[in-house]
């Protein structure tokens, strides 16, 4: 191929990529613009650039406080951010820790009910979370766990475990059994082989599963809105929704909130991606 043809091909490829990037980034830039514009309503605007830049919406969202009946003041947004982070982290940790041994057993061992067990787990994925909202509400009410982080974590973990088991089972199945057998011949127990060989190799898959469980819990709205009615217990999606009322829509606060809410996920993603190095498992066995 000639140099000129190479150049044209490269130009065409870059144009397509640039258009795709603009297409996906435009709404985000628009939200950023809205968050710093000070405009309280949605006004059509082609270029996502704030007309009168201001930090006021951001300050209003982040600085939200609440006066308690005892006269003390709490930093409401801080508490709500903590709710989201604690609930999501706990959900992901519980989900992944239960899913790892479960998925390994499904991937490696033959036992009575193995196939039925997987089907049952699959069946739980068929129903949307909202279908279980009412029974969950009743259970949490009976356990006096409404408006608590623990209650929310229990609900989220029960849905995150089956998905995590599916993800990790495939990951464990993809690891050649020869590696564990080599470790056992080398002197390891089955558990040592699992901890020293299988887990490190499955680290990228575990990281992805953790991230997915975290983000699902972090973004969840319907259950949170059903199970929480005390604003001190709110998670961030519920907080965001409250900015768009029936009679009063504060889009500037919504946009500022959306940006603040995104930051922890972006940070987490940045951290986790280091563990998602492709091809970590390559080269151990002939393939």
């Amino acid at each position: 191929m000639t140099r000129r043809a190479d150049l044209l091909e490269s130009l065409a490829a870059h144009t397509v990529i640039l258009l795709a990037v603009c297409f996906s980034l435009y709404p985000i830039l628009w939200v950023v613009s809205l968050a710093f514009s000070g405009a309280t309503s949605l006004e059509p605007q082609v270029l996502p650039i704030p007309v009168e830049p201001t930090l006021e919406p951001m300050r209003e969202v982040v600085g939200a406080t609440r006066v308690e009946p005892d006269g003390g003041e709490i930093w409401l947004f801080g508490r709500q951010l903590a709710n989201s982070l604690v609930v999501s982290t706990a959900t992901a940790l519980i989900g992944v820790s239960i899913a790892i041994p479960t998925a390994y057993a499904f991937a490696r061992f033959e036992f009575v009910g193995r196939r039925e067990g997987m089907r049952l787990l699959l069946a739980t994925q068929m129903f949307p979370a909202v279908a279980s909202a009412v029974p969950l509400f009743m259970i949490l009410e009976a356990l006096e766990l409404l408006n608590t982080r623990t209650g929310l974590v229990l609900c989220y973990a029960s849905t995150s475990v089956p998905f995590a088991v599916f993800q990790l089972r495939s990951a464990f199945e993809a690891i050649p059994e020869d590696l564990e057998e080599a470790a056992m011949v080398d002197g390891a127990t089955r558990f040592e082989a699992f901890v020293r060989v299988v887990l490190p190799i499955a680290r990228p898959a575990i990281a992805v599963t953790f991230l997915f469980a975290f983000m699902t819990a972090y973004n969840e709205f319907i259950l949170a809105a059903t199970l929480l009615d005390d604003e001190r217990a709110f998670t961030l999606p519920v907080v965001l929704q409250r900015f768009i009322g029936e009679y009063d829509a504060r889009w500037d606060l919504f946009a500022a909130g959306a940006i603040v809410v995104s930051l922890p996920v972006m940070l987490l993603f940045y951290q986790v991606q280091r563990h998602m190095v492709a091809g970590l498992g390559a080269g151990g066995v002939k393939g």
Partner: protein
Amino acid sequence: MWQTRPESRDSPVCMVSVRAKQLIKRFGETTVLRGVELDIPDGKFAVLVGPSGCGKSTLLRLLAGLERVSSGSIWFGEREVTTLEPRERDIAMVFQSYALYPHMTVRKNLEFGLRLRKTDAATMTARVEEVAGMLDIAHLLDRLPRALSGGQRQRVAMGRAIVRRPALFLFDEPLSNLDPALRAQVRVEIRKLHDELGVTSVYVTHDQVEAMTLADVLYVLEGGEVQQRGRPIDIYREPDNVFVAQFLGSPAMNVRSVELARGPAGEWRAGSVPIAQPSAFAGLEVGRGVIVGVRPHDLALVGEAEADLRLRAEVVETLGPELTVHGTLESDEPFVAVLPAEHAVERGDTLALRIERLHLFDAQTRQSLRC
């Protein structure tokens, strides 16, 4: 080239004999091994050879403890190991896939077994360096397996087995992923290494060249049973049955079903082929159905008067020192002969051949009639 440094070894090699008694292995309804007996003296190199599905890899996995026996027992020396875990058997295994830990450097791969045995750091370093020198992989110690070539990975897998100084080496088709040239080279090196280390080894392969060249003791397996055990050359010369006769040797032995008869002078014949040494066989009876076998190498090109059979050449392959002639006999049956390359044979020629050595098997039992 691999070098050993016996003077640097800090402990003597502990060798074991390997015995298996009436080993049976079933997977559900399928019986994979049917009463296998092994008796491998200590320090010997035993090769288990057979076609795919004959049970040789399962047998090796039973020796390793990676599968449980259905019945029977396994003994390493005087110790029964039938129900012991792999880690309790003092063995090392080289896998077909090499099974290197992909997240560990070569050094960590070699150290893995020593760490699990709580070997002190100084001994561990010394052993790893000794083995790395022996296998010429010292320059690869800080690399990950994915940065190694197939041959290098194979050496690291060997190193991981050697560094532990086990009482028994198990090899599961370790050369099958190498290209032919490298395979031949590593084959020689494995044999040298065995001669230098003197550790009892059990080696599984489907490749008869590996089997013939490496083995002190050869086991030919088929259908979950040991068909024949012995020195490779003895098995090649005196196969116990038609399967072994045809499995070992390349090209495969020519066989055909015939009836025993007497010639005009009272001499024994298998079909039309005269039996030169009838005293070598038992149970010769006129009319008995037999399978006569002739190795392609056991033929000589002779004059018409001396010929036992005539072969019409259809394909002639020249392989340096010898010719392989594929063709048909007068009876239209396919037949292969290997002759020295100095004979000028061309397609369409009819060759007069004398049988130098002949094998007879019973037509029903397919067992050798040699006494």
